[in-house]
């Protein structure tokens, strides 16, 4: 027995002790706050005095809060559209940048600039660009039928204006993921396909896409779960406005909790976000079979 355990640990299978730091960290910064937020959702808490048990009062408010359906809908749309738009751009771009060539590396350097900037800096930059009187919006607007440059102040356009900024921020990161993955595709596959007479498009759909499968899943999980919880750019750019036109669920939670100091109800919203986010990532990994961790390189 004892020799067996020794062999297995020598074979690189460390005992539980190795996981202790990670478990402690996860417990303190993930599990504990989650438990706390569920508890707070049943209390009235303004941060000033100790939480007071309120039973289901906060949860009942969900039905009377006119903003909650609106913010859920906006969050769903933001998540879905962000995923569609960002994948549609990042995947082809990443594959394109994966090939060799001086122009491409130069372009890549430019594409990745937003990666270096903090979300707050990006939001401040874009709020200046979107200024309807002096910003880029005042020049571009009249060209595309928005005469007064009113993008972020128009309830119909504000959402898409915000979507654009978020895409601008995150596409470079996902492009980088796809670029790396595309570079890892064995050249021999393409050589074989060329001999078989497959054209460029055929090679992309028959070789590149299947080979990128795991990357697509990874990138999608990051995008979907990420944009569900995402809000800093919207906070700075529109503050959820005009009116409630861009008030997504996380922002609704923030304003309720940290501006309205209504931590109890904000915790209800946080719990909903938590459940949605966890469910979403579970579904994705389940549906895509990502957890099997199957190799894509069989036969090579």
């Amino acid at each position: 027995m004892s020799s067996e355990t020794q062999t297995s640990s020598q074979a690189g299978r460390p005992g539980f002790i190795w996981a202790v730091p990670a478990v402690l960290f996860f417990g303190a910064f993930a599990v504990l706050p989650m438990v706390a937020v569920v508890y707070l959702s049943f209390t009235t808490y303004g941060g000033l005095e100790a939480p007071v048990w309120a039973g289901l009062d906060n949860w009942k408010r969900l039905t009377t809060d006119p903003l909650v359906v609106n913010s859920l809908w906006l969050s769903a749309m933001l998540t879905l559209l962000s995923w569609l738009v960002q994948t549609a751009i990042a995947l082809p771009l990443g594959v394109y940048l994966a090939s060799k060539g001086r122009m491409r590396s130069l372009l890549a350097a430019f594409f990745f600039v937003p990666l270096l900037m903090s979300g707050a800096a990006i939001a401040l930059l874009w709020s200046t660009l979107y200024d309807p009187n002096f910003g880029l919006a005042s020049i571009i607007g009249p060209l595309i039928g928005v005469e007064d440059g009113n993008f972020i102040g128009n309830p119909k356009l504000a959402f898409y204006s915000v979507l654009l900024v978020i895409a601008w921020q995150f596409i470079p990161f996902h492009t980088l993921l796809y670029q790396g993955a595309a570079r890892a595709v064995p050249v021999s596959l393409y050589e074989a396909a060329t001999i078989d007479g497959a054209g460029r498009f055929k090679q992309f759909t028959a070789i590149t896409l299947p080979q990128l499968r795991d990357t697509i899943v990874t990138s999608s999980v990051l995008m979907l779960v990420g944009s569900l919880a995402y809000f800093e750019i919207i906070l700075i750019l529109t503050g959820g406005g005009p009116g409630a036109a861009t008030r997504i669920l996380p922002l609704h939670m923030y304003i309720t909790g940290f501006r309205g100091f209504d931590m109890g109800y904000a915790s209800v919203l946080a719990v909903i976000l938590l459940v949605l986010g966890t469910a979403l990532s579970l579904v994705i990994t389940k549906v895509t079979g990502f957890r099997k961790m199957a190799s894509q390189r069989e036969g090579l």
Partner: protein
Amino acid sequence: MFRSRQEKSGSRSQRARRVIPATLAVLAVGALAACGGASSSTDSGAATPGGGDNGGSGAELQLWTLQNEGINGVQQAAVDRFNESSDAQISLSTYVNDPYKTKLQTSIGSANAPDIFYNWGGGNLKAYVDAGRVADLTDALDAAPDIKSKFIPSVLDVATIDGKVYGVPMQAVQPVSFFYNKDVMADAGITEFPATWTELLSVVDQLKAAGVQPIALAGSQGWTELMYLEYILDRVGGPEKFEAIRLNEEGAWKDPAVVKSMEMVQELVDHGAFGSNYAAVSYDNNGSQALLTSGKAAMELMGSWEVTSLNDSFPDFLAAGTLGWADFPVIEGGAGDPGNIVGNPSNFYSVTSDSDDVEAATQFLLTQMASDEYVDALISVGQVPAITGLGERVKVGQFADFNAYAYNLVLDSPTFTQSWDQALAPDLAQTMLLNIQQVFNKQMTPQEFADAMDAAA
């Protein structure tokens, strides 16, 4: 959120900066905020308890205030003067605006609570008073009538809750008034700023005919729009109408005067007073100020910090002397005194009831906040203190004329209504700001506004 909006001498608009700390605060504080919260505290005052042990009565007191390059030096000097002659020793800690609110909110009932704290008066202070955390200063002030009479009554009222005084004004008064571009007005043939609502509407038409946007409005931020409602309701129905709202009286939001005021707001919107794209304009990135200074718009309704803020961002405009200022117009047939004003009466220092030495902390406020040294030092950094009888003394420095205007405006005002978003409970204030934006954007009718606020209150 409660904004400080104080004038900052020699630095950019604080509003623009708030945004980043706000975001960082979210990231840093996160779900654990409830457990204490992070904050950026810098002990600029480095407590130096005079000569080793302070003996029995020498308590060490914490004073918390907001970071502000101009004013912190003045505050430190006041603390130093006090410490020289007292057993109790005060040390000054400064904080950035948004983290400060969370820090104060979470620590004031705990062992880490400060002894003296900066606050905004009104609803913000009331929450602490209701929780029993703030010392009543009424008796101490009544015992020193010569000091009490130095504070402008309409300002002291803001820190008075149920007839008891809980705070002492410690920095500038910030009334709201109209600012305008003299050149643009002159080019449109307007020689005098409109004194009545009717005149205002006709001036709006005149300016539109001249091809300029009559009024700049940073409508992406609800608090700029709130100022119109504050003034119009005061002029139409008198300050009692908001007082009823503040005291959460039954049906106060549904008062016909509230609906009428919102109708007048939409009348301005329909007149094209704000142009069409105001909902995308931000005050934080100087969007509305750029309209005013570039001559694309003629006027803007804003707090007194507008002058220093314009000076920071558009110094040439200020130097050219094209900036004019004027009172909010009289509304014909209205019940309110046209001398009434709205805005931020001041910020306040209050004493916590759990303080080690409430008496010493109170003595600090009484001996220092109205002292000639403190008042003159405030004036020298461009602040107009909430102190009576200053007369020509405020007329110094680069903005002497405006300072004198703002000072007299406050001094002569029968009532000084505090900005509603600071006077009301924070959650109600957030709902109100959202709904006001929707009224300005015509997504909500005045009656719907009244009903929605009545339901939320």
